[in-house]
């Protein structure tokens, strides 16, 4: 696939949603040992209480966010570390940041033509639902809602135009 076409256009033309969903599924299966699938289209999603984000810089430029409820975030940390170790809010945030980081890396690695042309930032995690998010990356947006342990998790890719 040529890099002549802008990545935002490619995201639209190539339909990157299944690639993003596969990246999420693989991270959960390998690191948490559980299979997750996209939610039904009418799945309600409340204001999520934890949001992890990783920036993309270079030819693929934008931001990937991963958000879920507090109980879901804690379950993710427990699945990653075990209940005896995942015992603090700091570790929950850390675990969520790493999940987002791996989703971003796994997604990027699945795209052709981005080899060495896209860098990831270290993750940032926001705790709390009452915030406004305004990305300067006003381009194509891809979002998926998936179900983990009966609760929705949201993964969003916002590309710079």
């Amino acid at each position, binding site marked *: 696939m040529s890099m002549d076409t802008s990545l935002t256009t490619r995201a639209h033309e190539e339909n990157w949603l299944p690639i993003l969903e596969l990246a999420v599924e693989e991270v959960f299966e390998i690191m948490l040992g559980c299979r997750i699938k996209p939610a039904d289209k009418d799945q309600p999603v409340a204001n999520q209480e934890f949001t992890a984000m990783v920036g993309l810089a270079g030819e693929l430029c934008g931001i990937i966010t991963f958000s879920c409820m507090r109980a879901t975030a804690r379950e993710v940390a427990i699945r990653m570390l075990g209940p005896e170790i995942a015992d603090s809010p700091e570790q929950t945030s850390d675990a969520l940041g790493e999940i987002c980081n791996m989703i971003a890396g796994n997604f990027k690695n699945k795209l052709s033509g981005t*080899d060495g042309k896209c860098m990831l930032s270290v993750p940032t995690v926001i705790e709390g639902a009452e915030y406004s998010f305004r990305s300067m990356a006003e381009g194509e947006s891809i979002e998926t809602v998936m179900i983990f342990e009966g609760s929705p998790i949201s993964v969003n890719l916002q590309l710079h135009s």
Partner: protein
Amino acid sequence: MENVLIVDDSSVMRKIVERSLRQAGLDLKKVVEAGNGVEALSALANEHVDLILCDINMPVMDGLEFVRQLSTVENAKGVPVVMITTEGSENHVVQALSAGAKGYIRKPFTPDQVKEHVLPLVGKKS
């Protein structure tokens, strides 16, 4: 029994890497942790380790720069380094191996991948 240094800015990931090493069959005597390349270089001034596992994307000093500087550390001469990172591009692999890394594992990783890439470096069968 091995002493290992695990370098990653995520304490969660350091614990997961340690657990994966134990699952792979390594008998870990001591696990030294560092959150970035500078902390890792500082730790190596006082510790001798048999194996280093290192992330790439970290604040302060990234993993590639850490590996480049490792050749100047007397305590680390000949110690194998395995990168464990979300950066999966061939460009990153080439940079890491050129800098002196002996192995490269992409996150997310399975315990079998750790076994395959790490055990031969410490003289064990994978």
